[in-house]
């Protein structure tokens, strides 16, 4: 199934753009809205969906996504009904979940259910390389892949190890800190991407802090994909009702998707 992801990156590459990966918090503010948002986002051009499992103590997330998670939990989101969002989603779905819900559900059982519902992979941000093996084994056994994260502070040797272990793509963290909409150091990010690029042939996608078209324009030549989370959550969370939320999300994704398209060589100034 990992080929679904490969296909998505391949398609974007063919269209000379970086892939757009849309992060949506499952169940925020309710499952109906998420359903509508997912459909709208895919319709608007998102290549891949990162479906966030809400968690009360999300160490890697900034206030926007943390609050979205709180709303989802308050509305009663459970893994069971989160899984049910996957089958109807017309793009490859990678689950994004903190490790504790997975451990508590049972790693095997989790992987099995995710797979059965059609997920292609799972990102578990708080499982470091050192803790990875037993979990990864259970996940892989059930035919799911695990993309791993690489931070700007990850030393080279470790980064190499991560790229060798990561599947589907390499999730490069665009900056120190957490998800959110604060400024990203574009030059630093490009260096970081270039460093990882030298280590791996797999696609590279950048996330954490990517929220605006100009940022994407600035980095789209350096990466194979961009992940947009907090900005997307804001785009739908500020709306009332599922339809409006879907429209808000759609508007943003359309805009960002345009930015993903690499410019014709003549306009290559943006590359520098």
């Amino acid at each position, binding site marked *: 199934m990992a080929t679904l992801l490969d296909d998505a990156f391949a398609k974007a590459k063919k269209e000379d753009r970086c892939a757009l990966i849309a992060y949506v918090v499952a169940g925020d503010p309710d499952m109906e809205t998420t359903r509508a948002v997912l459909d709208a986002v895919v319709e608007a051009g998102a290549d891949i969906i990162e479906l966030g499992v809400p968690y009360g103590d*999300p*160490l*890697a997330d900034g206030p926007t996504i*943390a609050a979205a998670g709180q709303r989802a939990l308050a509305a009663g989101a459970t893994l069971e009904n989160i899984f049910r969002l996957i089958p109807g989603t017309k793009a490859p779905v990678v689950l994004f979940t903190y490790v504790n*819900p997975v451990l508590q559900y049972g790693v095997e059982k989790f992987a099995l259910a995710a797979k059965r519902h059609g997920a292609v992979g799972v990102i578990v941000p*708080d499982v470091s390389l*050192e803790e990875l093996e037993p979990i990864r084994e259970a996940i892989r056994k059930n035919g799911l892949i695990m993309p791993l994260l690489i*931070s700007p502070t990850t030393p080279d040797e470790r980064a190499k190890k991560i790229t060798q272990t990561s599947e589907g793509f390499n999730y490069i*963290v665009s900056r120190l800190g957490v998800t959110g909409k604060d400024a990203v150091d574009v030059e630093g990010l490009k260096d970081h991407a270039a460093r990882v690029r030298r280590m791996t042939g797999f696609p590279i996608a950048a996330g954490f802090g990517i929220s605006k078209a100009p940022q994407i324009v600035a980095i789209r030549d350096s990466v194979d994909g961009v992940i947009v989370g907090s900005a997307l959550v804001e785009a739908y969370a500020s709306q009332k009702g599922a339809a409006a939320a879907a429209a808000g999300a759609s508007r943003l994704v359309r805009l960002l998707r345009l930015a993903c398209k690499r410019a014709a060589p003549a306009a290559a100034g943006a590359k520098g």
Partner: protein
Amino acid sequence: MHKPDERGYFGDFGGRWVPEVLVAPLAEVEKAMNEAFGDPTYWEEFHALLSEYVGRPSALTVAHRFGQPRNATIAFKREDLNHTGAHKINNTIGQALLAKRMGKQRLIAETGAGQHGVAVATIGAKLGIPVDVYMGAVDVERQALNVYLMRLLGATVHPVTGGTQTLKDATNEAFRVWAAQCEDTFYVIGSVVGAHPYPFMVREFQRIVCDDGRIQSQGRFGRLPTDIVACVGGGSNALGIFTAFIDDDNVNLWGVEAAGKGTNTAETAAPLAVGSVGVLHGSRSFLLQTAEGQVKPTHSISAGLDYPGVGPEHAYLKQSGRAKYVAVTDDEALAAFHACAASEGIIAALESAHALAYAQQLAKERGEEGLIVVCMSGRGDKDVTQIEKLDGKALVAEVTG
């Protein structure tokens, strides 16, 4: 097992369950810690501050009237006499000196009730290092006095509005801030929790509690205690007083968790008693969680024990059976608080009162040869307003009447 393995595990517990952004900062701390721990000048500076600034060694006080009638002897290890009134300062001094050594320009810390925040602000002021403290907005509100204390000490307090707006969320936030600013910032964790090397490192700073307690017990009684009793929030004062005795199999080690309204209720804070294994704040240990793996809200009358997790080494000691863990309710702790004030003239922290409550019970079971050392982890001045509100007077009547 005295040291965790190189991945930071005490048996099945501990480790480094963190986002990749935090791996490098943790490795940097670990490396600096290993270097410092091997450097006598580091420990000299640590011990000098503990003796000249904190006032160590803390006294060992025999309690003649508390918990009578009983046969066993009860003694209190008086961490309440430390500067800032609790064991917390031992740890913050160790970490702040490490930060200085690493050339960090700023200390950050999480705090619940404010005890650890005050201890960090204190050593920050002493060493001239700026301090930012993250504190749940709900806690900022209900612990206004400690917030003001931290400000007096020159620290900046940042209210955290995410999640339940309490300690666990403040900890999350501190981790996030650290991830973003690790280059010039040292994160001072307040207990034997968090990702490796913190549980080990904090324990090594807190073991001063029993390193001098062991000496005193031998000097005072000519023998080791039969029982050590300490409250367990994150678990730092307990490990502090357990560690030197860990190979003395005849010394029983008792960790006392906060049962809150009872371990059979939802309003409890006793992960070792009624929690299950999971991951919180970077390490694998027991925690209070839902079937869905969400961290549960907790309750204890004592803010310092009101935490859903517990240090991984305690999980290990529980599993190995070396230490025993029990839980004491709000009401039992309050009764022990009152009994101790009226019979010993010591206003104990409500946290420590949990240990007192259990020691009182134990002292009735033990015979003449029983020698129970209780870790008086802190003083209770901070709790008096709250206790007054709970109509302490009625309780005094109950206890003494």
